[in-house]
């Protein structure tokens, strides 16, 4: 007998919140990037849980896509971070405020 759906959803929500707080409060750009990944995976947990609950494979299909896209995104994102850190000579998001101008 597997645990009920709510547990999975609560777990997913907790994971998402941790990721969100990480994005908001951390200053290191890499940590923020990893927090975003955490939020993505929280979504994946919720999708799989729903797929199981509704007895369909659509959720798991979706997750496979998300993982694929996340891998590509990680490659692009890490590249951007690298370029940015070289350009600005810092990895602190507090310094990256050129949108203001």
């Amino acid at each position, binding site marked *: 007998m597997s645990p009920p759906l709510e547990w999975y959803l609560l777990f997913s929500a907790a994971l998402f919140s941790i990721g969100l707080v990480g*994005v*908001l409060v951390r200053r290191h750009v890499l940590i923020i990037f990893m927090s975003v990944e955490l939020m993505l995976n929280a979504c994946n947990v919720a999708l799989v849980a729903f797929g199981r609950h509704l007895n369909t494979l659509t959720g798991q299909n979706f997750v496979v896509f998300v993982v694929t896209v996340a891998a590509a995104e990680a490659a692009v994102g890490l590249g951007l971070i690298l370029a940015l850190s070289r350009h600005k000579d810092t990895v602190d*998001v*507090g310094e*990256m*405020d*050129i*949108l*203001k*101008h």
Partner: protein
Amino acid sequence: MEAYLWIIPLAPLIAFLVNFLLGRRMTDAATGLFATGSVAVSLLLSVLVFVQLDPEHVLNIELYSWIPSGAFQVGVGAYVDQLTSLMLLVVTSVSLLVHVYSIGYMRGDSGYYRFFSYLPLFTFSMLMLVLSNNFLQLYVFWEAVGVCSYLLIGFWYTRASASNAAMKAFIVNRVGDFGFGLGVVLIFVTFGTLAYADVFARAEDVAAGTLTVITLLLFMGSMGKSAQWPLHTWLPDAMEGPTPVSALIHAATMVTAGVYLVARANPLFEAAAGTLTVVAVVGLVTALLGATIGLVQNDIKRVMAYSTISQLGYMFFALGMGAYVSAIFHLFTHAFFKALLFLGAGSVMHGLNGETDMRRMGGLRRYMPQTFATLLIGSLALAGVPPLAGFWSKDEILGLAFIEHQYWIYGLGTLASFFTAFYITRLMALTFLGSPRFDTETIHPHESPRSMTVSLWTLAGLSVVAGFVGAPPEAGFIHRFLAPVFEHGPEATAEHAGGFTTEVLLLMLTATTVSVLGIVLGLAVYAWRTPALDPAVWGRRLRPVYNMLVHKYYYDELYDSLFVRTSRALGGGLWRFDARVVDGAVNGMARSVSDTGGTMRRLQTGLVGNYALAISLGLVALVAYLFFQV
């Protein structure tokens, strides 16, 4: 007559256009001759009009429809009757002589071509004014001569006094023209048309009260243009313009437009109740006011300006008595002898390097015999010495007042006539008699060139003979000639026949005696220097009166404090209101937007974290809302 009538105003208009547009590249002689030639053409054709005039029927031509707008139909046309014809003669002849005179007088002036374009422009406007066949055309050219007057008073515009005088003339005239404009509107409202022929034909069908309002408004225009009390203050200042301008515009023609207006609209004035009394009173007050101020002025042109005001007053009280022919007769003779006096004064100034103060003249008779002789004729004509022009016309007005039992008009008019004889004698004595009061070492007075003396002699000749068209009184040529124009006037129905009756001869004798008395007194004071009549002593003895006259009854001071200062204060106040309240509101609006933007701008930190936080909080709020709503 229709074939050439339109050339009369067209010729000076062409001269204006050519001289104004091309004058800079033409030689001075060419511009002067061209302008003079054009006016000569007008004069010739005016004589032709006079000769060919059909006494039985008024020529009323509609040249073209100017404003065809529903019921409001206004054309440009010509209305030629005896009055028009006479005015054409006066305007073109004086204008021609002034043009000829100016060729010499203005020689060497840097604005020569400008002068000879404004002068034909004025002549054109004045001719169109006289030729008008409806009130709107009259009004437009009434304003046009005002503009020309403005341009010519301010001809030497680099002098502050000239440009101020020009503005004063224009603004004072606005006061009168405001009334005139309202009068024209009211004529249209009342009659539904502005054409003379229709309006005059129906004058008697309209309530007398309405006509009183209309005629009083029209008369306001006359008061402004003809410098009648209390709008007389602009004319003496207008002497800032070149002297030929003073002769043509501010003595002979434009200022008589007010007299022409009343005479032209005589059917309206006759049918209106009470207006003619106002006209008579204003005229009488002006005649006395001008003559008394003229007694003490020291500027030769100003004496003549006040003389003009006073003589115009005579014309108006003649109109007020219903003696239209006498008024026009006086206009006719006055045009010649006053133009002569002004041109003579110009000749004196020309010989004295522009000096106008009579206290620095004297003894000029030896230096300028021709100017002296012609001015003497003009002065005697003004003083009313028989048989010169002024005697016939002015004394006819006074005589009429007596015959019509208007004794107070007669008495005051005769008093003014005495003053007139006195001040013109004073002017002549101070200028030409005695010994020179200028520095004979540095100033060498000389007689004026031929082109100027020719005009002087011609006008002198006219001043001698012009009076005979009105002799004998009330039965002369001019009375028979103008009778059809004023067929509704009291003159047409008067019981006395005119001519040399015993009464008329006695009146003539009285008038001549008064004039001679004035002249003798003037000579006694200023030429023979009788010790008992020393002007300095009498000036001290009659100090309050003297001061009042020297300050021209304080009208300038009164108007300055009453109107000029208040309107300046009002203007200043409105300007401050505009600068602070109106502009303040607009600027304040802009500033508040800018300030709001500046405040809001701080929200945009450029830090992605802040934006993300805002998005998250928004999301949480949205979800919470949806969650709790269900």
